[in-house]
């Protein structure tokens, strides 16, 4: 009978599973988000949440409990000094699992395991947006240079031209975005 037998053995021996969970938990604490199979992510959730609770308590005893599981000094340090303090005002639910689809090769469902508040992609997206802005700015400069040349010949006021300029640029940006989405 499997009464009160929680959890998934993930087709491993007990020691193999413990080792797997140790590795995954240490990787989560180091990298803040990992990609793994959905079954492993769901099993890992309980371990990571428990570790973060240790980190929030922050005593030497809890540090030793965390080390007992992780067996990784760097991971314990980053857990207690970086990860746990950011969850001060959150009572549980420190992790998030997002399904990504099935893996090519064995069709295994893959998920993204995140620490809430440590999402990496927003940074990447911001960096990308900045790059795009720079590109647009370069284009604007080039466009203005050509315009100023035209203005010099036509001798028109720059203030009146600057206003209708902006919406046209926005349209260009939108067009670029649409093209990207189509890709």
């Amino acid at each position: 009978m499997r009464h009160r037998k929680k959890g998934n053995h993930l087709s491993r021996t007990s020691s193999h599973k413990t080792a797997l969970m140790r590795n995954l938990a240490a990787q989560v604490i180091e990298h803040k988000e990992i990609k793994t199979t959905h079954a492993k992510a769901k099993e890992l959730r309980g371990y990571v949440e428990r570790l973060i609770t240790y980190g929030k308590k922050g005593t030497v005893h809890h540090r030793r409990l965390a080390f007992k599981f992780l067996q990784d000094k760097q991971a314990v340090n980053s857990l207690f000094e970086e990860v746990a303090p950011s969850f001060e005002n959150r009572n549980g639910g420190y992790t998030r699992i997002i399904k990504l689809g099935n893996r090519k090769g064995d069709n295994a469902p893959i998920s993204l395991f995140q620490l809430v508040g440590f999402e990496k992609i927003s940074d990447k997206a911001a960096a990308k947006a900045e790059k795009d802005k720079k590109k647009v700015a370069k284009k604007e400069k080039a466009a203005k240079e050509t315009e100023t040349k035209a203005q010099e010949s036509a001798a028109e006021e720059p203030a009146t031209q600057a206003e209708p300029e902006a919406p046209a640029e926005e349209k260009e940006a939108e067009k670029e975005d649409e093209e990207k989405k189509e890709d």
Partner: protein
Amino acid sequence: MANPKRKISRSKRDMRRANWFSSMKPSQLITCDNCGEKKLPHRACPSCGYYQGKNIFIPKNA
């Protein structure tokens, strides 16, 4: 040993198989809120990397 009493006729066999086949349904797709592509429900969009209004990953050929 327990054995079937009668041979299963071609008709019976095919009726069983036809029923099994008609139960195979294509997966239900929804349109992505961010990019409008078709995607599987409850999963991050493979074409734009968004899920519930948040960017989860940046797709490779973007």
